[in-house]
């Protein structure tokens, strides 16, 4: 997969912040006038909808963000404007922590694992 060029990275969000600040100034209100996110059904790790516990108060599967958020953030047909969970996770140093930077075996520095990446994964 190639990197893609998106001309207005975060532009929208910053614009929204400005709008919000303006709205706060004009109306003296905090946190209003901001459209909430569209409804989000909870999905489990397998991508199945999580049934409302019956009887109420019983345990249910913890939702998975990969499937729950990924249902739309990754549905390139319905939401072509959204990057997918995978696209975000693959290209995130906060997530990879060196796991995508595993280096070759370094015979000059024969630590079996200590030098395998510059991040968490491979340093320990």
């Amino acid at each position, binding site marked *: *997969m*190639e*990197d*893609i*060029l*998106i001309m*207005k*990275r*975060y*532009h929208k*969000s*910053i614009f929204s912040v*400005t709008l919000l600040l303006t709205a706060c100034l004009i109306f003296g209100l905090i*946190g209003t006038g901001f459209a*909430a*996110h569209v*409804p*989000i*059904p*909870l999905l489990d*790790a397998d991508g199945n*909808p*999580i*049934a*409302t*516990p019956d009887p109420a*108060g019983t*345990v249910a599967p*913890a*939702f998975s963000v*990969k499937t729950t958020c990924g249902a739309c953030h990754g549905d390139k047909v319905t939401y072509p404007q959204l*990057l997918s969970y995978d*696209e975000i*996770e*693959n*290209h*995130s*140093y*906060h*997530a*990879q*922590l*060196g796991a*995508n*930077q*595993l*280096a*070759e*075996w*370094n*015979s000059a520095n*024969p*630590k*079996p*694992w200590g030098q*395998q990446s*510059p991040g*968490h*994964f491979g340093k*320990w």
Partner: protein
Amino acid sequence: MAHIFADVPGGVKFELGMEPFAYASEADFIDRVDLSVPGMMQDCAECHIGGGGMEYVPAPNLADRVPLRDFYATAVFDHLTTPQTGAYSAADYTAFNYFIDTYDVDNDGDLNEVQEADFAKLGVLEMDCMLCHLKGYEYVDRRDMLRAAKFDASRAVGAGVAEQNNVSFGTAGYGTSVYYNDQVVDNGGFLEFGSSILANLKATPPSDNCAFCHFNHGGVDWKKRGDNWKNDPNYDVHTVLGCMGCHEGKIGSEIGTSGDPNSSAIGQCDPAKGNAPYSSLWNANDNTMKTCADCHLKAGWDAGLGEYSNDFGAPDPTARHQALGLTAQLCQTAADGNVNASHLDILECTVCHVRKATTEAWNTGGAVVDATGPDAEGRLADHENEYVSRMMFDGTVTNLSYAWQNGKIYATNVLNTIFWRDKEPTFDANGDGQLDAMDALLMTDVLADDLAKGWTNIVKDNSGTVTNIEVGARIASLNAYLNTKWGVTNANVKLATLAVPFKVNHNVSPASYALGHDCADCHAPGEFFDRTYAMQGDGMNLTFDSTQVTPFTKLGGTTPTDFHPSLKDRAGTSIPLQVLSGNTTLRDIETGEMLYPPSASYTGADGNPYATRAAWVAYLNTVGGAVGQAVATIASIDNATNPGSPFEVGDAMDLTAGASAAGSTYYWTVQDAPGTLTGQTVTGYVLNNPGTFQVLLTVVGPKGDLKQQWAKITVVNKAAATTVDSIVANSGSATVTINLINLPAAADYDELYVRYGDGTWETIAYDGTDDNAQTVVRDYRLRDTYLNGTNYVYTTTVQVKNGGVVIETIKFKVTIPQ
């Protein structure tokens, strides 16, 4: 430490994949592992988002990664076996499916046992979008779930939509099921997020979410830089921009999706990066964030992208910097006598502008991480107790040091991690298979010995005051522990420190607090170049015998140092600096020790050689006074025409400035007319207009610095000498003759401007006779409106002008009988 992947024979590159390393047995695992992958998920992931190696078994091609959820179901790459062996099982002790139970997930009090991580029961750490995007996310609740190894549950509990279940470790559903609360709602028999969660999902992550990890006491990143997020613009002027104001990256920059670590693009959900000197993680996308210069000097313009990003209206400080001499060529890019750089060329903005200027008790950072034992929460090192932290400001002085990166000085907080290691070259103290004299002990070995002795970490246990007695007792205890564990007799444990100069960028103070208003802010004894900077926490007094400690490493294999090799001089050569080894206390340093190697030789901007750091620092401490600086003082403003009198139109003015440094240039502007005058003294400046004006003196010093002073002058019209000698008016006749006398000499006026007071006016040229007199003849308009009783009365004004300038003005009444 854990052996994650098997070694590849013959030094081949990992092109296809890597095979998880399998320990021989549970006993082998416990002997050689302190932190495995599930252990990282429990501990490190407190401040890491998940995804990557916390969700998958890493592989060079990200699409080929096997999800940890499937670790027991799907064959993981195996380079030693063709065809592939099947999936791993509980019988394989790898760094992926076992961990040391330092957080006691089964509540049996045993922190040194091995536990299995069956991800089907625990869940995995997916990248938790809500940790950043959900306003009001419960960081501490998530952390508690991580320590319990309830990985899937961590997201639901952290989002505040569920509580944990009650099943015990090892049971199905342990980490994968929860009790949902009313933050989720039913929709047709299935759950969806309630409205407040939806409303709190923010496109731009709230700064408070960033602060969980990066700011404020206790956040694990806080110790590195002493960064605090308090929404106090007096402490941090950028607070209103929020983190993403700068870390959003620039409009038009590339968004990466490839996962290729050579890509300079930043991911959509990665805040854009700066450039940490000691970090090697994904360096290709360093320097992607907005810099100070982007907003303050370039108005957001990026020539490469050809676009403007939001600059938030940042003021351009160039004139102020110039005025303070900071853009003048006074400095050197190398200490070789070649003056070729300004202060701004060799200092990062933050050096002067990050002052962390408040004496609030929260204004702390980390000085020491005590890795000799667990903290109050069970983490295997203590970075936040009351002894190891330091105040960042004492009311006057900012408690930071300085170091070089790429030819510029940056502000730094030095963090010392003190830890145990074994120095016996024939003994593999940590079981990593390497015989060297650098072995850091397994944290779990240290924990086991601490627990056996009823210890935690050494600083906390001794309320900050640690002597050679306590250090010796722990060394003896650890030696005995290791000798027993490995069946040897030669364990040789020492205390070491790793001092890392973390780059300080945040908490930019209001400009009035900045250094550099005066040379002596830095160029004075005890300031920038030789201020005492403590390596220990404010509440610590750590002493020991020099035989109880050992250096962190040896530069070039020979020169001992306790600093990370990223401590470099301006040419990029590592500076050796021993602060623990070779000493009997974790000693204070002088700030200059981090900037200048002790025995190098330096040539000053003055051309003189300085043979040692001490001589060089002594020179730098005084060099501020030696440099000629601009001084702007208006010494006098005199009336040259009528000395001592107030200025009248037409008077000449003399201006004198007090002496500035030799080689200064003096500029004057007088606001009554455009133009600039040059010279320390200006004589004969003619004031042509009445009014109140500014006189501005600008002095540019020999090195380009600039100072200004201004004063006000008031110029009034000259008192009129001209008088009306006689007015000849005849009853009923419009024609009036006005005889003016005492006019200026012919050379001093060229016309009269007369407003007759009947709605008409006229310019009359000098009459050509140099007799100080002139006659004006005029037919007045005889209108009823000017009638006053039986007379027509007019208020007539005569301005005497020369070269367009009014020199005198007189007013008088003209009366014509009806």
